[in-house]
């Protein structure tokens, strides 16, 4: 099994992963359907990366579950994250 590891400390809160994820699912750009969400705190200091599986059904809304980017060489959230805040923990993903 492979899984994604996140590092909230590293994350710069750019939400690139959300946009990339929506592209993986539907070939469109739409953070609201992404399987993960970046939450920035009000004072902009803290950031947390929340995955679909940890969301309430209300938070999920139109979101699609993460399939670890089936069919892609590398999960798109990992590929586009500029700071390696999301990384693959075992080989064989996608």
């Amino acid at each position: 099994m492979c899984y994604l590891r996140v590092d909230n400390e590293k994350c710069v809160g750019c939400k690139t992963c959300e946009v990339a994820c929506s592209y993986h699912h539907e070939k469109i750009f739409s953070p609201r359907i992404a399987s993960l969400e970046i939450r920035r705190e009000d004072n902009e200091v803290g950031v947390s990366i929340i995955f679909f599986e940890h969301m309430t059904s209300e938070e999920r809304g139109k979101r699609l579950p993460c399939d670890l980017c089936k069919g892609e060489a590398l999960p798109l959230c990992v590929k586009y994250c500029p700071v390696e805040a999301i990384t693959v923990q075992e080989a064989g993903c996608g």
Partner: protein
Amino acid sequence: MKEKHFSLGGEILRVDLTSGEIWTEPTAKYSAKLLGGRGVDEWILYHEVKPAVTPFDPANRLIFGTGVLVGTLAPCATRHSIEAKSPVTGGIGSGNSCGFFSPELKFAGYDHIVFQGKSRAPVYLWIDDQHVEIRDASHIWGKTTWDTDGLIKEDIGDKRIQIACIGPGGENLVKSACIIANRARAVGRCGLGAVMGSKNLKAVAVRGSGSIEVAHPNRFMEEVDKAWERVRASPRADSLRTFGTYGRALALNEACLSPVRNFQADFWDPQKLKKATPDFYKNEYEVKRQGYFACPLYCSHVYRIERGPYAGLVCEGFEFNDVWNFLNRLDIDYPPAVIKLHSLCNEYGLDQDSSSCTIAWAFECYQRGIIAEKDTDGLKLEWGDHSVVVELLRKMAYREGIGEILAEGSKRASELVGKGSEKYVICLKGQDSMEAMRAAKGWALGCCVSPRGGTHTRGANLVELSHEIIPPEVAQKVWGIPKVEGPLSYENKAKLVVYYERLQAILDSLGVCMFTSTWWSPDLLGPEEYARIYSAATGREISGEELMIVGERIHNVEKAFNTLHASFGREDDYPPTRFLEEPISSGPLEGERLLADKWGQMLNEYYELHGWDKETGWQTRRCLEDLQLGEIADELQVTGRLIS
């Protein structure tokens, strides 16, 4: 059924604040000719605001624009432009910033918002996808931008909405008032926040849950991948990631481009600068690095001050400008002051460039005995005293005491004060000008000819400063010149300026950040790359060269607006007198200044490249018709400000 248009939200939202009416129109009718963002904003402004309309007249428009690539994975496609007739220059008011506001608006389905009219009471606009509502803002009026942000989120019951708002500065029609998104991202220049305040519009809040589709997804992603790789690999982009925009501080001081004491010097005491190095801020104050939507540059840094008079302050980071603005300009030898003054400007909704320049002018007037404590509410305007600056910013934002005068900007303030204070005004087209210019001629030209009244983001170049590392073949390929000459040379600089004016118009219309482009470093993205991304996104095939023609068109719309509204001509494209008459007083380039005759030649070359008239600086029919702007030529002709 809505017609499908690629890479667009699809609609322009129209809001009449007088009648409360809200309606939409399709964006697509403007796209081919003017792209989006600034291009479309300025086109609408040009056509709907006539010269008789004054900036605070309800008939003035306040126009927000996203950009064609905003919301996609194109690197740093996250910017919004705002345009209106400027209360500072009387000509084009135009500014641009980043954050999450622009993509959110686009996901709600809107590429632009056009405000007209004036609300009777304070309001804000709430956009929740297709639901658009004008809401009461009486409980928020008077609040800082930070409080406004929190209160509106509370009002709506959602912390994740995006907000652009004004602070007390805009409400009180301060000429340097800006519009702030994400608490720290400012559309700064030209007094756009004051136009917003004049309409009684406190904020625009948006929640967008839709999507952006591109015409050729696979091709688009291939181009995007190449672009990301370039941005990732560029060493100069890396300096942004590490230090933000402040990375080149020491080099720029050595180049005599650090304004000190209202430009009495262009070189700051190295002992003082040594205390305020990029490394120092990073090690001492930085708590986080931060980026906005789809931005691999994450140039914004969050700082915390733990000791001293400003202890407890946490805010998103200052830009390079702010060090110029608040340390060297006012000769403040206390590095954390820049963090405090920067955050105060954001909270009050004041543009830091203009505000600090007006304050520097007042300090010089005080130094020369033109004003004294009786004029300054008892404050001693002594260089280096940051606590006085804290006080003056507050007074400006609330127009209190001397703040009433300073709120007008230094040009108007000097008319009120008189007594020779006019001599110390450093303005371009009536707007306070923040850049040192004597030691970089192409940079200076770009600032001086900028239609929005100064600023280095509309044509000023940086490459002359690294001319020695640019091979002739790169100079030829990118800018069409045999060689990039050093900053003290006037040669071939007009070409660089025209190139960057066009490129900048494109970037602002696509909604992408200039730091991804050849403006920041020649190894980054140029018109060819943007054209490929644009073509794949929209399905409208365009070459880099053609895209630059669109850039030229947008620039000409801006120029025509200025000619019609403010009658600017050749004389308004000259640098402030101080830079022509007083040489640099210290530092490696002591003695250097701008020479009027060489300036004149450079200006001739610049007008020629645009196809404008050299004698007057006005546009010609031929140039406008070549750009399919014949109707603008007709209008200029009626006023007698067109050369046939």
